C-alpha cells in the first residue's frame, strides 16, 4: 500500500533534473502515478532556466536534482539556489549513485535537504518526497501566518511613553502640542472604543447631590 491512499498529495509541483533518460522517465512516471505534478529537465542548465522563469503556480516547490549532469551539476544548482533570493527555502533532494559518507556530507553541505541513492526504490522515493511535501507545506503555512501577524501588527496603535496631563481638568497634551480631552485622545490614538457609564463612587456622589437639590 502506498501512502497516497491515506493522504492525497495535493498541489506540490516537482522539478526533476536528470540527464539519464531512463531514470528521468522512471522518476516522472513514479511521481505522477502518486499524484504529484512533475516537470522535467534533461540537464542542469535547463533546470536552472526553468527555476528562474517559472512563476506562481507554475513554479516548482520541490526539486529532485541528479548530482552528475553536463553543463551545471546538481551540487552547483544546490549552491546557487541557497544563495539566490527567493529560492532559499526550496526543498532539494539530491539523486546520485554515490553512496559514501563524504558524498552525503558534501551534498548536504551544498544545501540539499535530502539525498536518494540510485537505483532508487519507489517506496523510498515516495517517502522522501512526502517528507519534503510536509516541510514545504509547513513553511508555506508559517510564511502565511507571519504575513498575517505583520499585517495585524502594522494596524495596532500602541500608546507608550510619557503623556502630560493637566492636574485640574485632566486634559492631555497630544503630539501636536494641543490639549485634548482624555476620551478624545484615547480614541484617536488607539483602537479602543469607550462606552459611557458611571462608577459607584460617582453614582453615590451624584445621587447625594440630586437629593440635596431643593424641591
Amino acid at each position, binding site marked *: 500500500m502506498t501512502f497516497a491512499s491515506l493522504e492525497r498529495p495535493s498541489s506540490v509541483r516537482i522539478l526533476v533534473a536528470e540527464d539519464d533518460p531512463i531514470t528521468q522517465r*522512471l522518476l516522472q512516471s513514479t511521481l505522477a*502515478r502518486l499524484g504529484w505534478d512533475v516537470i522535467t529537465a534533461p540537464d542542469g542548465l535547463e533546470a536552472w532556466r526553468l527555476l528562474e522563469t517559472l512563476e506562481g503556480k507554475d513554479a516548482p516547490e520541490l526539486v529532485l536534482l541528479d548530482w552528475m549532469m553536463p553543463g551545471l551539476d546538481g551540487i552547483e544548482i544546490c549552491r546557487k539556489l541557497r544563495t539566490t533570493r527567493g529560492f532559499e527555502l526550496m526543498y532539494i533532494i539530491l539523486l546520485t549513485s554515490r553512496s559514501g559518507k563524504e558524498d552525503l556530507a558534501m551534498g548536504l553541505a551544498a544545501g540539499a535537504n535530502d539525498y536518494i541513492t540510485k537505483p532508487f526504490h519507489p517506496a523510498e522515493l515516495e517517502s522522501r518526497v512526502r517528507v519534503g511535501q510536509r516541510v514545504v507545506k509547513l513553511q508555506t503555512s508559517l510564511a502565511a501566518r507571519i504575513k498575517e501577524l505583520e499585517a495585524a501588527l502594522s494596524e495596532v496603535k500602541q500608546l507608550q511613553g510619557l503623556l502630560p496631563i493637566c492636574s485640574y481638568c485632566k486634559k492631555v497634551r497630544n503630539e501636536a502640542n494641543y490639549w485634548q480631552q482624555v476620551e478624545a485622545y484615547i480614541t484617536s490614538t488607539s483602537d479602543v472604543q469607550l462606552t459611557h457609564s458611571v462608577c459607584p463612587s460617582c453614582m453615590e456622589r451624584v445621587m447625594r447631590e440630586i437629593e440635596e437639590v431643593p424641591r
Partner: protein
Amino acid sequence: MTKSASVSASPEVLDEKALLVTVGGDRGLARELAQIFLQELDSRMPEMASAVLARDKTRLQFAAHVLRGSAASLSATRVTNTAAELETMARAGEMATADATFARLKGELGSLSARLTMLIRDL
C-alpha cells in the same frame, strides 16, 4: 512473460523481478524503459568507443556514468558493474585496461540487448 524467456535469462544480465518492483508493476513502463535503453545505445556506444580510443577521460567518465545509471534502473547488474569499472578507471585516469573493459562491456550489452528485446516482445 514466456516460460522460455524466464529460463534463458541469466539473473546477472537482467533481474526482471527487481525491474517490475522498480516500475511499480507497470509492465508498459518496463517495456518503454527497455525501448529507451536500446534506442540510447545507438548513440551511446559510438560515443564511448570514441572516448576510449581518444583516451578522453572526461567523456568516458560521463558516458560510463550515464550508462551505469540507466542499467542500474533496469536492474541489469552485469552491465551496471562493468560500466562502473570504466567510470572509476576514467575518474582515476587509469586507462591502461580501458580497451579490454570496454570490449567486455560490449559483449555484456549484446546479451542485455537480446534479453531486453525478448522482454519488449513478451511483456
